[in-house]
C-alpha cells in the first residue's frame, strides 16, 4: 500500500473531523431562546442560578474562548454533562454504543446475505420474470421509509399476532442471565433489524444484479460457458467474486447512511441505543447530549469512509493513488 496515499487520507480525515467539531459547536450556539433556561423546569429559577449554570457549562465566555474550551475538553474525552440524565455525556453514549452496533451488525449481515443472493439470482436470470419480480420488489422496498416499515411490522407481529415484543431490548425486570438473556435480546432484535434490512436489501439487490450482468457479458465468461464450465461454478468463481468489490464500497457507504435507518428503527421500537438516545435528546432539547451523539455519528462515518478507502485500494490495485476513482466510481 502506498504510504503517501494513506498519509493523505489520514490528513483529509483529520481536517474533516476538525471541521465537524466546529460545525457541531456552532450549530448549538444558534439555538433560539435560552438553552440554559430550558434546563430548569421550575419557573422561579433566579438569574443568579442561570448565570451560575452558564459558568458551569462555560457559556459565559466569548465564542472563541468557548470553542477553545470545547476542544480542550474534547481532547480530554469530556463531552459535557447531559441536561436530562445528569450524567457525563461520554458515559451515557458509551453505554449505548454496543447495543447499536449489535443492531447494525445483524441488519447489515442479513441485508448483505439476502440481498446478494437475490441480486445474484436476478442478474443471472436477467430479463426473466424472476428478474423483474425481484427488481420490482426491491425498488418498492427501497421506497418505503424504515419508520413506516417499523410501524407496519409492529402492528402486524407485535400487536395483531403478538409473536414479538412491542419494543425495548430485553424483557423488563426479567432477571434473565446467560443464554436466556441472549435469546431474550435476540427476540427483541428481530423486528427492529428487519425494519432496517428491508430497506437496505434493495441496494444490495441492485448492486449485485448489475455487477452480475456486467460480469456475465465479459468475454472470459462467455468463453468459460462455451468451454462447458458448470453454471454454478461460473457463478461462484467468477461472477460473485467480481461483484464483491462494489459490495464493500456500498457497505461502507451504507453504514454511514444507516445512521438514518438506525434512528428511525430505534425510535419506533424504543431500542435503547444511540439512535433512540439521539431522538430523545432532540425531543428533550438536551443540547450537550445531542452534540455528543452527533459527534459520534460523524466520527464513525469519517472513520468508516477512511477504512473503506483503504480496503478498496488493497483489493483493487487499479484505484488511482490520489483516490479519485474511489469517490467517483
Amino acid at each position: 500500500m502506498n504510504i503517501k496515499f494513506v498519509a493523505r487520507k489520514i490528513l483529509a480525515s483529520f481536517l474533516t473531523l476538525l471541521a465537524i467539531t466546529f460545525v457541531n459547536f456552532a450549530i448549538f450556539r444558534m439555538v433560539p431562546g435560552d438553552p440554559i433556561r430550558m434546563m430548569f423546569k421550575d419557573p422561579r429559577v433566579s438569574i443568579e442560578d442561570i448565570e451560575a449554570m452558564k459558568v458551569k457549562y462555560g457559556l459565559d465566555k466569548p465564542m472563541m474562548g468557548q470553542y477553545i474550551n470545547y476542544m480542550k475538553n474534547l481532547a480530554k474525552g469530556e463531552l459535557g454533562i447531559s441536561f436530562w440524565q445528569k450524567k457525563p455525556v461520554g458515559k451515557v453514549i458509551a453505554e449505548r454504543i454496543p447495543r447499536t452496533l449489535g443492531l447494525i451488525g445483524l441488519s447489515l449481515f442479513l441485508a448483505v446475505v439476502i440481498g446478494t443472493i437475490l441480486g445474484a439470482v436476478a442478474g443471472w436470470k436477467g430479463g426473466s420474470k424472476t428478474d423483474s419480480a425481484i427488481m420490482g420488489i426491491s425498488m418498492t422496498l427501497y421506497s418505503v421509509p424504515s419508520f413506516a416499515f417499523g410501524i407496519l411490522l409492529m402492528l402486524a407481529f407485535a400487536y395483531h399476532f403478538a409473536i414479538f415484543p412491542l419494543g425495548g431490548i430485553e424483557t423488563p425486570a426479567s432477571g434473565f442471565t446467560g443464554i436466556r438473556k441472549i435469546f431474550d435480546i435476540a427476540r427483541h432484535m428481530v423486528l427492529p433489524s428487519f425494519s432496517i434490512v428491508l430497506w437496505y436489501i434493495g441496494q444490495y439487490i441492485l448492486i449485485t444484479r448489475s455487477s452480475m450482468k456486467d460480469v456475465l457479458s465479459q468475454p472470459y465468461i462467455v468463453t468459460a460457458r462455451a468451454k462447458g464450465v458448470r453454471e454454478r461454478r461460473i457463478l461462484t468463481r467468477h461472477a460473485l467474486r467480481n461483484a464483491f468489490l462494489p459490495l464493500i464500497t456500498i457497505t461502507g457507504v451504507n453504514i454511514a447512511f444507516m445512521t438514518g435507518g438506525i434512528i428511525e428503527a430505534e425510535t419506533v421500537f424504543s431500542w435503547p441505543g444511540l439512535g433512540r438516545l439521539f431522538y430523545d435528546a432532540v425531543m428533550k432539547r438536551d443540547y450537550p447530549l445531542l452534540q455528543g451523539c452527533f459527534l459520534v455519528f460523524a466520527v464513525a462515518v469519517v472513520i468508516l469512509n477512511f477504512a473503506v478507502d483503504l480496503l478498496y485500494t488493497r483489493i483493487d490495485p487499479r484505484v488511482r493513488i490520489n483516490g479519485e476513482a474511489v469517490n467517483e466510481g
Partner: protein
Amino acid sequence: MRVNSYKLQKAGDFWAMFFSHRMGRTGFLIFCFFIFLALFAPILRTVPPEISGSADRILTGPDGISWLGTDDLARDVWSQVIFGSRVSLIIGFVTAIITVFTGTLVGLVAGFKGGIVDEILMRIVDFFMMLPHLPLMIVLAAVMGASIWNIVIVISIVSWPSTARLVRSQVLSLKERPFVEAIRCLGANDITMMMSEILPNVFPVMFAQGVLMVTETIYAESVLSFLGLGDPTTISWGTMLHFCFESGAMARSPWWVFPPIVCIVSLIISFSFLGTAVTDILTPGYKEKMGY
C-alpha cells in the same frame, strides 16, 4: 459557431425511447396521477383539509361522506391526502431546484477552473458528504424550528454536494473533448463556453440528480415530520403520519395510517422509475441496442 457533434439525442428520440421503456412509462403515469391530484385538489370532492368536522364524525371509517374516513378532529383523510400531495410535490421540486442549481454551479466552477478553486470547493463538498445526513437534518430542524421552508432549507443544505461532485466529473471529462479544445482555440471566453457547450451536456446529469433529490426530499420530509420535527400547522403526508402516531389511536384507524404511507411510497417509486429510465436511456449504447 456551434459544434453539435456531442449533443446526446434529439428530443424526439429521447421521448420515444422514454415511453418505450417500461419503467419510464409506469413512473411517468404515477407521477402524472399525483400532479393531477395536486392541480385539481379543490374539485376532487375535497373539503378544506385543516378544518375540523363535527364531533359525531371523529375517527369514522371510510364511508360515503368521507372516502378514506376521518382523523381525530373529524377532518377528511381523503382531502388531507390530496392536499398533502401539493405540499410533498412543492417541497420536493423546490428543494430539487435549489440543490441542483447550487450543486451545478459549484460543480461547473470547480471542474472548469480547476487548480486551487477546485481543491477548495471539493474539500467543502467532501466535508458535507461525510456528515451523517439524517442526524444533521434532525439537528438543523430542531435548532431552526418547525416550518415547511426550514425543512426545505435543511434538506438543501445536506443534499447539494452530491450534485456538485457529479457535475464536476462530467465537466472534467467534457473539458478533455476535442470540440471544447477547438472552441477554446477560437478564442471563446470561459463564460460563453460554459453556457453554450458544457452546460447543455451536463443537463442529463442535472436531470437525474433532480429526480433523485425529489425522492430524497419527500422521504426526508416524511421522516422529519414523523419524528415530530415537521411543520405541525401544514398538512403533509409526513405530518398526517405524525399526528396519527401521536394520537395513540393508530392501531385502531388503519384508514388514517395507510393512505399517507401508500402515497409516499408510490410517489418515491414513480421517481425511482423515472430516474432508472432516464439513466438507462442516457447510457451509451442504449440507443443502438434498442434500434433507434
